[in-house]
């Protein structure tokens, strides 16, 4: 199961994750710096450095996790794996998919990416694949919808 032919999110997901980690950190650093500079210069400097370090650390973590995402369209089900520290592998049968979302936040959209999310009747399923190129996301959505329809099973 693990040595299947895994597909991965677009390499642009790395860029998206860089933005998601660093932009808030820089904004937070500026905000803290400006506010604290009124009272004490040292406090401002410490806060700025701390915010930037936290951002950098988050960035490293998020970059490492990008590589862990993978999915395989098998004959009857979709496999999704993710996570490095906690490794998760989900099997979602096509017949169990109730609907499929394609979501793109502002960062993802600016890079032409989208997240595909699958919903089953179980709340715990939580199956999603982030950072797919927009056309791959659309293809996957259509294909999954088609397969789901052909294979649909009742509760």
């Amino acid at each position: 199961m693990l040595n299947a032919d895994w597909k991965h999110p677009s390499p642009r997901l790395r860029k998206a994750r860089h933005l998601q980690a660093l932009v808030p950190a820089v904004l937070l650093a500026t905000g803290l710096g400006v506010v604290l500079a009124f009272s004490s210069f040292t406090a401002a400097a410490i806060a700025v450095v701390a915010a930037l370090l936290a951002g950098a650390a988050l960035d490293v973590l998020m970059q490492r996790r990008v590589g862990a995402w993978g999915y395989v369209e098998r004959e009857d089900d979709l496999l999704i794996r993710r996570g490095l520290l906690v490794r998760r592998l989900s099997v979602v049968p096509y017949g169990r998919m109730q609907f499929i979302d394609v979501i793109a936040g502002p960062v993802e959209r600016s890079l032409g990416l989208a997240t595909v999310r699958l919903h089953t009747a179980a709340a715990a399923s939580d199956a999603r694949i982030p950072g797919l190129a927009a056309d791959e996301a659309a293809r996957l959505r259509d294909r999954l919808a088609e397969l789901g329809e052909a294979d649909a099973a009742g509760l």
Partner: protein
Amino acid sequence: MNGLDGWHRLHPLSPAVRAGRVLVAFIAVFLPTFLGGSRSGWDAVIHGVVLAVLIGLGVVSWLVTRWRVEGSNLRIETGLIRRSSMRYPLTQVQAIDTVRPGLARLFGLAELRLRMGGTGGSARLAYLPVKQADTLRARLLALATGSHEDTPEPEDEVLVTVPVGRALASLVLTLPALFLIAYFATLIAAAATGGSVTRTIAGYAAPAMIGNAVAFWRRFNRAYHATVAHAPEGLRVRAGLVETSAETIPRGRVQAVRLLEPILWRPFRWCRLDVDVAGQVRDRGGERRNERQLRAVLPVGSRAEAEQLLELLVPGAPQPVHKPPRRARWKSPLRYRRLSFGHDETYAVATSGRLARVQRWVPLTKVQSLRRIEGPAQRRLGLATVYIDTAGKRFGAAFRDLDGDDSLRELERLTDLARAARQA
């Protein structure tokens, strides 16, 4: 037919019964202010106005609500300003429950609740006269199961009755109840000695303890005279001292079954049996009421009684014969001795629990997705857990701390078995 065609209103006393329930909550909220001394005339006036508005709203909501059975749908129209017309396809009904709060029983009324599958939530008809509720229930069930609606309903065959004494004893032997007892003991001690420290503690704990007492009462009410009967469409569970309820668990709609043996009940060899049916975890509009609706099939019973019911709920289920490797003790020291799992072509079964012993069954036809999760501690020990997700809202099953390679094999095997079960 049965006088159920055309549009109907709910019973005219419905707003009164509903307001009655609100009134109880109202008193509970405002009693402290009344007792608190500062009882000015204005307060009473304001409370009166609030109550009048609530009753008025109830009457209006009664006036604009109507329902009818249309073919194989139940339609409910309601709302004054924002009319809503809801259509509940009866083929998707998971269960029909009759709930009768104390006040409703006084007036001979009952509420019907239809639990729908998927995202449908639940349809509620509150309140109907008992007779009408019964005929409507029979008719809706007949439509839901596709049988002829004039077939007389056979008598239920009672399988298990929980003695009141046992219900009470079992509830006393739960942690919240023991806290409650300890609390009253402290109160008495405080009154006897006049110690100010104990009094302070007692005062601070009072709100939590009131909540605790209410929860205790509710659980007792649910377990009071609980009977499980064999009905044509499945298992029927009745219970209640003040608020009575009759719930049906249709055959083939069971998503998961759980057998719980709390540690405090061990000396008596009692256990509790729960069933999970499909439903939403979070309803839109925050109606979390459904969550509570799902009650124990058997609030407290002997092992033999539980096994009798299990034979009906999960007939021929396999035993959990496999154990995780010994090194799993490092990861789950308390749980290890309870961990086991097993499956055949139709059911997966797993046991777990730190203090209590918990055993869960999942029919493989109900599997929604499967997950293998390997946490950092598990990876160092070469272990992984396989989760079995169902559409139930409370519990699935999990094969915990399997050997890493075994877990992949189990995942593959369960995937294949679930597919075969689904297609059968």
